[in-house]
């Protein structure tokens, strides 16, 4: 933020006014906000529905679908958009952009909500049912209310992500606010207009963050703490069991199979593509290294922030948690350039070294992990920790034996979210990665940039494959840890 303000202020008030009052600036901001709102609403619906189906229902193969449903997060938006544009070239503008971004970003809602559903104490739902509520009413009055915080922060992440996305909007030709920022970077060495627009984006982000915080009630989301929650019974879908499968299958078909199928077609059509397993293998190694470091560091940093936000009602706690979200709304190139600015000036030996890249991932993706940890922390009754303390355990031991296991599903979901998002990260990786450091995402990008679409297929496929393993491990762990 300091970087943006310093750069934006460099031109004085006139430059600021000139940039802000271009008629186009306002128009594009409104278009971007409309897109963000629409994608958030659709993602919330799909994310909650998929989480409920895969965690709480006897959906055939639900464990597999739970992993598959998280994977669209690893598909770079420019790959999906490219695939969409090459299959349906006449569709451009709002609708295709809306569809592509929704298909890629609903996991921001799905993963945290699934983590919360995993931990819901069934006693409350059962109480509602025993008091005469039908299954749907009980779902609406009890379950939905409990997953609301996780769903809301997930939707917030979607909203901020859409504001920052550049790949899909540029390829599907939807005129958005980020396009202006990128144009400004592309067409001149004057960094001021982009910084001014970045500041404007920040202001709107803060507005959205404050608005979202207002919707959070003061409700408690943990049970009556009479013993440990039992594993809930699976909802029997009966004759709807196979019909319900249409949702995860359909989403996977459009979000995963369609774009990857298109990249395979590029490979088949290419007369010059060489499948270079060595190079792609090295890129996969680099990707896993950088993304795993990014995910672990980010998740670790998110634990205190999420816990504090869930437990404390103070303004300071709220401020710390909200400020974590700011980085997510800024286009990656803005964050990357600000880190270039600071490392070159103050930490030159670290410039283009892995630690700065990992730090960039932390700045960009901290809210992903915070939202997941927050969802779990809300469900953890503080009384359990108080009991442990009163029985003589030291704070560190209480954290290890009581708090940590309760937070585990959220931390697992957060780590998975960040890992999957790091996999496809492009601008920061390109600018801050060590010289010669090639990840799968940068490989896909450089191949498509050179018109060598066939060379993009293998790394694109590997991106999703590499994303599947840790997602499976992390979400499975959350599922079996409940005792």
């Amino acid at each position, binding site marked *: 933020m300091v970087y943006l303000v310093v750069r934006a202020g460099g031109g004085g008030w006139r430059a600021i006014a000139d940039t802000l009052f271009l008629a*186009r600036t306002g128009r594009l901001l409104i278009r971007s906000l409309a897109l963000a709102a629409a994608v958030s609403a659709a993602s919330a619906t799909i994310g909650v529905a998929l989480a409920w189906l895969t965690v709480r229902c006897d959906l055939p193969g639900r464990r597999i679908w739970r992993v598959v449903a998280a994977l669209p997060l690893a598909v770079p938006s420019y790959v999906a958009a490219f695939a969409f544009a090459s299959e349906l070239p006449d569709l451009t503008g709002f609708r295709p952009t809306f569809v592509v971004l929704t298909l890629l970003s609903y996991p921001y809602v799905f993963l945290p909500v699934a983590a919360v559903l995993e931990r819901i104490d069934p006693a409350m739902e059962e109480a509602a049912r025993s008091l005469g509520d039908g299954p749907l009413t009980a779902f609406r009055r009890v379950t939905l209310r409990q997953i609301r915080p996780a769903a809301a922060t997930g939707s917030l992440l979607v909203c901020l992500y859409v504001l920052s996305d550049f790949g899909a909007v*540029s390829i599907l030709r939807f005129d958005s606010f980020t396009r202006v920022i*990128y*144009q400004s970077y*592309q067409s001149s060495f004057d960094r001021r207009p982009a910084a001014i627009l970045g500041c404007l984006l920040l202001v709107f982000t803060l507005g959205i963050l404050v608005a979202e915080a207002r919707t959070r009630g003061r409700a408690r989301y943990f049970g009556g703490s009479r013993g440990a929650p039992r594993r809930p019974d699976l909802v029997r879908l009966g004759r709807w069991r196979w019909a319900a499968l249409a949702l995860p299958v359909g989403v996977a078909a459009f979000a995963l199979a369609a774009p990857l199928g298109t990249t395979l077609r590029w490979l088949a*059509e290419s007369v010059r593509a060489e499948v270079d397993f060595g190079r792609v293998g090295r890129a996969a190694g680099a990707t896993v290294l950088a993304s795993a470091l990014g995910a672990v560091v980010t998740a670790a940093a998110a634990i205190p922030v999420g816990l504090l936000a869930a437990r404390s009602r103070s303004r300071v706690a709220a401020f710390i948690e909200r400020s974590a979200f700011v980085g997510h709304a800024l286009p990656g190139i803005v964050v990357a350039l600000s880190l270039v600015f600071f490392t070159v000036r103050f930490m030159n030996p670290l410039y283009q070294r892995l630690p700065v890249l990992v730090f960039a991932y932390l700045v960009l993706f901290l809210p992903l992990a915070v939202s997941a940890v927050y969802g779990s922390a809300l469900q953890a009754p503080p009384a359990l920790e108080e009991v442990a303390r009163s029985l003589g355990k030291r704070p560190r031991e209480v954290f290890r034996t009581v708090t940590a296991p309760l937070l585990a599903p959220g931390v697992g979901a957060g780590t998975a979210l960040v890992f999957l998002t790091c996999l496809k990260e492009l601008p920061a990786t390109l600018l801050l990665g060590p010289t010669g450091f090639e990840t799968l995402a940068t490989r896909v990008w450089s191949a498509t940039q050179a*018109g060598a679409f066939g060379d993009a297929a293998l790394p694109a496929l590997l991106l999703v494959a590499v994303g599947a393993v840790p997602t499976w491990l992390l979400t499975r762990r959350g599922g079996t840890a409940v005792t």
Partner: protein
Amino acid sequence: MDKAGLFGPIPAAVAGVVDKKFRAPDDNWTGVSGRARVVVYDPRKVPAAELPASVFDLTQPKWKGRIGLAPTNGSFQAFVSAMIITVGEARTKTWLQGLKANDPKTYAANDLIVKAANDGQVDIGLVNHYYLFQLQAEIGAERTVARNHYTAGTDPGALVNVAGVGILKSSKRQADAARFVEYLLSEPAQRHFADRNFEYPLLAGVPTAAGLPPLQGGQGPAINLGDLADLGHTLDLLHQTGLL
């Protein structure tokens, strides 16, 4: 960057191999590869007789809804700058307005325009010459239908621009930087630009890729490439006419 005074001179022995037209008068930067602006077209929709002799013809009503542009692209903007330098701001503005009135389809990048022309989605587009050859290398000659058309003589649409390098004055490793520039202008690197990227090599004696028409001596508008740097006016005009 040169206008901002950030470059120091490249040793004359290094930059000297490049034609004066493609480097700075004071050798503060030099081109390392050339790219020509062309009109890419779909021969199924645009018969040879109908091809525009000049980009100025593209404002005619018959091109309505048929033109592809990448207004955010640096090469497109450099071409508009070249037009401002050769015919003046007023005429450029009129042309841009005419172009806008013809409802062009805008794309994020040049290669997408070439692909679109090849797939029959756009009839004609303003791009750099090499994207067509890259597409041809990727999907094969028999499936590459689109063709390049070079507008005539000194038309701004026939601009030949360069990808260039300069050495930062602030660098503490001037000798290494000069060696790198020397490498970029050496035969192996020039062959790479020619054969892999389908650009025009700027080292005499290195052949252009097969199938690429050679650069003509007087091709394109007679301008100093260094003047293309002044993009301020260009962007203003693109904003004013609503193309950006």
